[in-house]
């Protein structure tokens, strides 16, 4: 009995040893939103470099920030940039935007193309507009037949990056929202019902007549939900789309650390509720093999990886941001030395 056990243990050790010898495992954790894209990237990249394997746990942005701060993973992922307080605990952490997401307003009412101004949207979520035939909604939608039914607001009940982006936008465009509610992953909603996840919000909106809620653009597109057009900073009504989301990032001066809110961006075609999603890596990598592999992968992700993004309903980075990222990635060091990206180029 003992002999069998010992043999099994030895065999297991041997298997582990050989696995370590010819492959490199890079671990990461964080945001759930980009998970479908990241897993596609990891499998595509694994075909290019079979010796490299990725293990990504989509435990939420908060968890990703905690894990990379504690250095228990090789990279983190977050839908929102770190706050100054969070960044102070993880000195040397670099934000690398990978793609963009957007938040759309979805609804259940007999109106074909709902148009909303920022003021109306804020009034709806503040609970000030309680019926669909409110004059403010009628003013945004000239000619539309608005029914006399109550508006049921649906929001996320779980803390989420989607809520953070949406409330960040409302706080920018509405002083009342900023003072009464503010922005965050979980907020004190002045009105409405909470549902868990994009699918919870969708389920509730779909089966409640007169409901209005917000979900991720990718989720709304895949499930063919009714989406409202929003009036952007330049005064144009914009339908949510990948191109309009990328346009939002192009209309913003992106700072060197990429920690920027791109909601309510300038630009005629910019969709106003958009955001980067980030991978988080340390600017100086301690492990030579892993660090070099990670930087090469990031280079690939912001170039070749972008072509995969639209197929999975993620908005690709605009060209100026990619150009800026090339400089950033070239400045990442491994054990104090810069990585040669010649092979990647």
């Amino acid at each position, binding site marked *: 009995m003992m002999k069998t056990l010992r043999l099994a243990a030895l065999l297991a050790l041997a298997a582990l040893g050989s696995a370590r010898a010819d492959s490199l495992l890079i671990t990461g954790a964080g945001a759930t939103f980009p998970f479908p894209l990241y897993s596609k990237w990891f499998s595509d990249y694994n075909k290019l470099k079979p010796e490299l394997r990725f293990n990504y746990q989509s435990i939420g942005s908060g968890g990703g920030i905690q894990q990379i701060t504690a250095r228990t993973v090789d990279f983190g992922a977050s839908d929102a940039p770190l706050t100054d307080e969070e960044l102070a605990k993880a000195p040397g952490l670099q934000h690398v935007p990978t793609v963009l997401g957007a938040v759309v307003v979805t609804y259940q009412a007999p109106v074909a193309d709902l148009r909303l101004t920022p003021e109306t949207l804020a009034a709806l979520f503040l609970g000030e507009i309680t019926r669909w035939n409110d004059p403010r909604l009628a003013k945004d939608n000239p000619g539309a037949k608005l029914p006399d039914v109550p508006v049921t607001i649906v929001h996320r009940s779980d*803390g989420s990056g989607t809520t953070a982006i949406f409330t960040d936008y409302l706080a920018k465009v509405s002083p009342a929202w900023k003072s009464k509610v503010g922005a965050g992953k979980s907020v004190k909603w002045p009105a409405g019902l909470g549902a868990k996840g994009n699918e919870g919000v969708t389920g509730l909106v779909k089966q409640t007549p007169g409901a209005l809620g917000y979900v991720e653009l990718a989720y709304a597109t895949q499930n063919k939900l009714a989406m409202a057009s929003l009036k952007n900073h330049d005064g144009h009504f914009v339908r949510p789309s990948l191109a309009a989301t990328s346009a939002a990032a192009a209309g913003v001066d992106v700072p060197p650390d990429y920690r920027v809110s791109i909601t309510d961006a300038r630009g005629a075609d910019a969709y106003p509720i958009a955001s980067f999603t980030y991978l988080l890596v340390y600017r100086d990598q301690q492990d030579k093999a892993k660090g070099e592999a990670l930087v090469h992968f990031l280079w690939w992700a912001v170039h070749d990886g972008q072509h995969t993004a639209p197929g999975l309903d993620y908005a690709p980075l605009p060209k100026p941001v990619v150009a800026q990222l090339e400089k950033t990635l070239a400045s990442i060091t491994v054990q104090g030395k810069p990585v040669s990206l010649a092979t990647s180029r």
Partner: protein
Amino acid sequence: MAPPRPPRAAAGGHAGDRLFAAVLTALGGAVLLVVGVVVLELYRVAQPALAKGGLRFLLDRDWDPVLGSFGALPFVYGTLVTSGVALLVAVPVSVGLALFLSEMGPPRLRPIVSFLIETLAAIPSVVYGLWGLFVVVPLLRDHVEPALGRALGFLPLFRGAPIGLGYLAAGLLLAIMILPTISSVTSEVLKTVPSSLREGALALGATRWEAIRLAVLPYARPGILGAVLLGLGRALGETMAVTMVIGNAPEISASLFAPGYSLPAVIANEFAEASGALHLGALAGLALVLFGLALVMNSAARLLVRLVARGGRAAA
């Protein structure tokens, strides 16, 4: 393996017994240790929120993660109200079912009904939640709540817009979920009632109903209470199904039609993305409150079940 000779077995048995006792004691101690570690860890994580709020944490009704103001009252209220509704609905039905199973039902039907009830207990709570969201909630919104509002709208309990989601939906769903627990424990308790009691009552000229009301139910009352408390324990801790139908609004409202929130639901919803030590601490504080509630309920249930078991033995 051939059975060993008796004398050796006796000697080995003694040593084995001692070892067995030691192992079991260690296991029992481990449970206490785990519970202790959980409480200590929760207390440690909850420190920022408890230190800031103190007792106000329990009594404050404002929950605003952006401003960092945290009060547990809406969640405690939601948990207690939904569990209360669940008990009000589930207890009469469960006791009736248990009576059917142990006293009245046709013997050929009893095992089938009992099997179906036990199947209810095996359905995962997320399935209950989905069923609640897609079946119970529209039913409440379109039919039950408007009718209740018309008939009993003079009570604050049944006022307000019929939106379907809220305390009533969560309470009804919980009632169905705790029904198997209460009815199966109750029917076991009813089986411990000595048949001499029933026969005596019937011999004195009582009807079936009188025998049950005057002889069986009073005898089984503590055991039924224990069953009810076990059901309550489940209702207090239920998370998924409740969060899907309660509306998730941290408010206190007199109306059963209004959306509310419960302790387990808010912990599950906000924990993964809680930002900052204070928010995390407040959630850990809620967990402590829930732990306390569940502990009190479970201890009471244990105590009562033990009492009725002793009573049953003494009478037998």
